[in-house]
């Protein structure tokens, strides 16, 4: 109010939100301490034992890290593809949920609720056992490896959650947007794709990224159904190192650190977007 003394009533000014601070992932002291702590946890255990004949956990992880990281890359690949597939299917399902046809809408609702409220691991089992390991199309065999089935398995809950996000975002838009579009003779389809959905993207982005973080972390469940991802490799590395009990914490700690370093910035960025888009 002090900036504009000429107008006595601040309420007469259109409300403007303060500019949000630009996004920067600042590595503060606290982060440094955290990461150092994790590294110490990983490397420390074996140093303490200090056996001359056994290698330290740090050496072990260093030696196996290319393999372990390739496994981690695989987790990321699975999560990205599952998210891609699930998002495309989820948008389609979301459109069914907000559609006019009561039959498809009801079917879509049942579908959504089913996949939203099933444990991810169960969906994963279904995908694993319902999908054949190869398809024969016109004489050529298309292999369908386990990891692709895992992608499909994870994309099912993603689909249902994205459908809910779409539905919620569309519902949360003021009805005036629909009315304005209608009065300008836009068809329903045009209204959706040109006016409603673009505005929903902004609202959906933070929860969508949140979902992505969850998917990434869930991909380790694929190890249970035999996909050779990071957790599977971690346990195999542990076996190859003779199953030393003192290696358990450092090896799994390393996996944890990888996921943390990947998901934490996403989490921060999501928070930033949430603040930014807050209406």
């Amino acid at each position, binding site marked *: 109010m002090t900036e504009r003394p000429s107008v006595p009533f601040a309420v007469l000014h259109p409300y403007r939100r303060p500019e949000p601070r630009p996004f920067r992932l600042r590595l503060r002291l606290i982060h440094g301490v955290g990461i150092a702590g994790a590294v110490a946890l990983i490397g420390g255990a074996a140093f303490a034992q200090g*056996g001359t*004949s*056994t290698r330290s956990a740090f050496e072990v992880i260093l*030696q*196996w890290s*290319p*393999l372990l990281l*390739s496994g981690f890359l695989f987790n990321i690949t699975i999560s990205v593809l599952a998210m891609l597939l699930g998002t495309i299917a989820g948008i389609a399902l979301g459109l069914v949920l907000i559609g006019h046809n009561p039959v498809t809408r009801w079917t879509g609702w049942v579908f959504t609720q089913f996949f939203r409220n099933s444990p991810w691991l169960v969906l994963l*089992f*279904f995908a694993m*056992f*319902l999908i*054949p*390991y190869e398809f024969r199309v016109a004489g050529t065999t298309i292999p369908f490896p386990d990891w692709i089935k895992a992608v499909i398995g994870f994309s099912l809950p993603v689909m249902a959650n994205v459908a809910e996000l779409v539905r919620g975002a569309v519902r949360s838009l003021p009805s005036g947007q629909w009315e304005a579009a209608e009065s300008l003779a836009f068809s329903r389809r045009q209204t959706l794709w040109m006016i409603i959905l673009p505005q929903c993207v902004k609202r959906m982005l933070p929860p969508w990224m949140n979902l992505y973080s969850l998917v990434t972390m869930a991909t380790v469940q694929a190890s*249970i*159904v*035999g996909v*050779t991802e990071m957790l*599977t*490799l971690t*346990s*195999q*590395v*542990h*076996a*190859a*190192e*003779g*199953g*030393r*009990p003192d290696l*358990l914490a450092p090896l799994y700690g390393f996996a944890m650190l990888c996921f943390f370093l990947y998901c934490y910035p996403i989490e921060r960025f999501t928070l930033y977007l949430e603040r930014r888009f807050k209406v």
Partner: protein
Amino acid sequence: MNKFALATLAILLGIGHSASADVLAKIKEKGVLTVGVKADYKPFGFRDPSGAIVGIEPDLAADVAKRLDVKLELVPVISANRIEFLQQGKIDLMIATMSDTPERRKSVLGIDPQYYSDSVNVLMSKKAKVASWEDLKGKVLCGTSGAWYNKAVNAKYGVEVKAFDGSEKPLFALKGGECIGYLYDQTFVQGKLIDTEWNTDFAMPLPGIMEAPWMLAVAQGEGAFAKFMTDTTIDWMKTGFIVQEETKWGITPTAYSQRMHDKYKGN
């Protein structure tokens, strides 16, 4: 538990398997033999730092591929999925530390003679001066709860078995001096003794008891391939290939391997 869940699910869903008539023909046509092996059981099947699966069973698989004159593809399997993989046709042959049981013979075609055998043994502290099973009378061994032989060993040799869950806890207890040895599968004990972590203070001084043979398996109905694998297994025993493999991967040849070698090398 997972194994059970998977099997139940598979049955519930009534999943059939693509019973392609002749797997040998398929292997030859594709030029690839796909074998399911373990990747977490040293030294039978485990990873090297490059990510490749190595060990005794991958070597056996490689030998089969060589005999068929095709390339080899190894698929890592776990106990929970190895039978399904074979039934689905995802793997042509299973060499994955699978014990021979009547139930398993119902779902897959087991190969005779059994290529290997596990048995019961003790990972023993070198300080405990034990030379025979009878010497164990009145002593305390660590064990894994639920192992079928705990009771039998206790009854027969008068040794107390202190049971823990899984295999990590009894190993901890052993290192902590709660017992003089760990009563467990001999293959597991042998695997431990490859590493300096264990072989400096521990050993396996006793002969294995209560043999539990492992079988190779192919899908049901693959009689021709089964015959080929039977011949191959006998040839391995004849030439002493399996004993060589044990030595190569750092374990003491088992009584079973020796016996089979002796039996077949004559003819």
